[in-house]
């Protein structure tokens, strides 16, 4: 095999093309072919080299010599002299180069410094290497805890940190653990809810795929604190890569004795396994998830009893979201007061937000709790795409609320948003520009809920069907004035009478749409 020894890079931009860069490129290819050098010397196109009005510009490597004003007639000479004999064609060489290698800084703020706690390793370490996780100090917190701390002390520390559930319900994680620890029973379970299905949310996937051991360490600590013997990770079936990487992570951790029998010689045994979902949004609801995990249809259970006393197979069970559990190793390593240094008094820590839709640079950030919607959209998301105006954002997923421009300066955390009858939910922020048809968006949301309603309770099963009928009518310009209020009335009944949050939460997108866009909806009548 011949190894390439020279590269000829021809600058292709509007001015060099005008000067005949393509013809020069072809001439080089032909010349090299004629001399049988095509395997040793490769000809490639490159961008502007920063020289203006210097005709065809090219650079020959490995020497990095830049030639300007090159014509097809010069090509044989460059090949003969430079490539074959190693002598530069001095009359064409550019000696004074403009400043090079100045990297245009990304305009977006996605690369802005972020306090990364749960995403500390995602996108940095190799997720398939347990060594790399351990090299960053991984499993250190777990080993210290299991060797040196009592379970009650761990729970106290988590309580002190003020960590609340990051799946959307925002219940105190330490309290939940405490309830399950105190619940009667020899067998207890930890379940990680990785059934991430809230539209617009992919924060958990970044942890599952990018740093699976952090989740396992969080589950290990939870298991020790609660006194559980088994942990289950319920992952949605669509997350193929997450399942692959976690399976490997569990195997690697077991091989090192970080999971399994008698961990760290402490007598504590804990086994973690994966359960794969099969496509049902309602299974994100914790009791429906338990049913599904037991091998049934994913219908929600009535509460109480709560899972902390009667969960999986009737045993005390803690169900935590992926992001919640990924906070645990960092909290235990650095302490509760360190964690409280981030975020607000009532909502300490960070939150992972997904910024998507009509923003310049869709993506994901981890920011302190309480960051404003304006900062998230304009600082991190790069503002509205194509210089358009902000219309609204659907915050918290499909079960969230549409927030208009008057909400841009509200702090994004669980407590502040509740004051405005909105929710942070999963942290999904779907941004819409001024040209967005709000009726079409609401129609899409309502169709989603009709499809995902599990059919268990009447208000949700029939309500979602009626809502879809009405919104389809309105979107088709066949609606009546009273249809608008009918949407609201039905969703109110569903909020008050549905069995689980799926049916209850539809009131939010509907009422917020009407709050901001009643006139736009009426204009469709």
């Amino acid at each position, binding site marked *: 095999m011949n190894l390439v020894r020279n590269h000829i890079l021809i600058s292709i931009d509007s001015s060099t093309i005008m000067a005949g860069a393509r013809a020069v490129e072809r001439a080089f290819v032909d010349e090299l072919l004629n001399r049988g050098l095509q395997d040793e010397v490769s000809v490639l196109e490159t961008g502007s080299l920063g020289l203006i009005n210097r005709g065809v510009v090219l650079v020959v490597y490995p020497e990095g010599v830049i030639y300007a004003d090159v014509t097809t007639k010069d090509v044989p000479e460059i090949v003969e002299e430079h490539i074959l004999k190693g002598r530069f064609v001095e009359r064409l060489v550019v000696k004074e180069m403009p400043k090079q290698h100045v990297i245009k800084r990304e305009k977006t703020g996605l690369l802005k410094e972020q306090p990364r706690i749960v995403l500390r390793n995602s996108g940095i370490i190799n997720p398939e290497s347990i060594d790399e996780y351990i090299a960053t100090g991984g499993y250190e917190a777990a080993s210290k805890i299991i060797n040196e701390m009592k379970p009650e002390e761990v729970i106290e520390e988590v309580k002190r940190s003020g960590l609340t559930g990051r799946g959307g319900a925002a219940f105190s994680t330490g309290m939940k653990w405490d309830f399950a620890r105190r619940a009667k029973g020899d067998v207890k379970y930890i379940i990680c809810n990785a059934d*991430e*299905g*809230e*539209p*617009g*949310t*992919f924060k958990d*996937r970044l942890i599952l795929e990018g740093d699976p051991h952090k989740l396992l360490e969080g589950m290990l600590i939870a298991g020790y604190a609660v006194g559980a013997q088994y942990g289950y990770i319920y992952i949605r*079936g*669509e*997350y*193929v890569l997450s399942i692959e990487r976690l399976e490997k992570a569990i195997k690697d951790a077991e091989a090192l004795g970080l999971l399994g029998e008698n961990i760290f010689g402490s007598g504590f045994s804990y086994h973690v396994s994966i*359960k*794969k*979902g*099969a*496509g*049902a*949004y309602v299974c994100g609801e914790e009791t429906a998830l338990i049913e*599904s*995990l*037991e*091998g*049934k*249809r*994913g219908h929600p259970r009535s509460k109480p009893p709560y899972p902390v006393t009667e969960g999986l197979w009737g045993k005390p069970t803690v169900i935590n979201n992926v992001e919640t559990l990924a906070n645990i190793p960092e909290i235990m390593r650095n302490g509760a007061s360190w964690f409280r240094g981030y975020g607000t008094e009532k909502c300490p820590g960070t939150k992972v937000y*997904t910024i*998507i*839709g*009509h923003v310049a640079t*869709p*993506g*994901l950030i981890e920011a302190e709790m309480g960051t404003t919607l304006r900062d998230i959209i304009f600082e991190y998301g790069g503002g509205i795409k194509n210089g358009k105006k902000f219309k609204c954002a*659907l915050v918290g997923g*499909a079960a969230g609320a549409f927030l208009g421009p008057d909400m841009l300066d509200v702090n994004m955390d669980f407590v502040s948003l509740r004051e405005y009858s909105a929710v942070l939910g999963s942290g*999904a922020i*779907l941004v*819409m520009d001024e040209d*967005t048809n709000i009726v*079409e*968006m609401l129609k*899409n*949301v309502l*169709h*989603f809920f009709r*499809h*995902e309603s*599990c059919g268990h309770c009447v208000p949700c099963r029939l309500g979602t069907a009626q809502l879809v009928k009405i919104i389809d009518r309105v979107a088709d310009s066949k609606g009546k004035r009273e249809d608008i209020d009918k949407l609201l009335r039905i969703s109110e009944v569903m909020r008050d009478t549905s069995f689980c949050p799926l049916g209850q939460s539809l009131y939010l997108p509907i009422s917020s749409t009407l709050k901001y866009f009643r006139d736009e909806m009426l204009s469709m009548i």
Partner: protein
Amino acid sequence: MERDEIIKKFSPSLDNILFILHALQDNNPQNYLSKDDIRVCAEYLNVPYSYVHSVASFYTMFSLKPRGRNIIRLCDSPPCHLMGSGSLLEYLKESLNINVGETTEDGFFTLELTSCLGVCGVAPAMMINDEMFGNLTPEKVNAILDMRRKS
């Protein structure tokens, strides 16, 4: 592979039912759960046929009727909708000459819609079998379908 060989990889415990159904469906050349698949699963787990059928029909990733070799699942959630999945759906229907839920005559493609796939940063997106594709345009969809036809 024989059905018996596949299910033996899992212990006969009811909480493995979704794993077993996934495995049986993946093994079925027509990408669905046939009556035989359901019966084998029911016998293995020692539950009635009707029970397995009721579970299989609850979850959208399982199909009880035959499907094509490639299952196209176009994301239809609000983020992808906002970024133009609607026109992609029209394009797919037209170029495959089928509706949602149908299979092409040559048995190559089945077109389905799916809830959020969790790749909203590269919306609009779709999955074909286990593979994810993002930043879709009609041209890109065309190229992907062509590649699938050849492979």
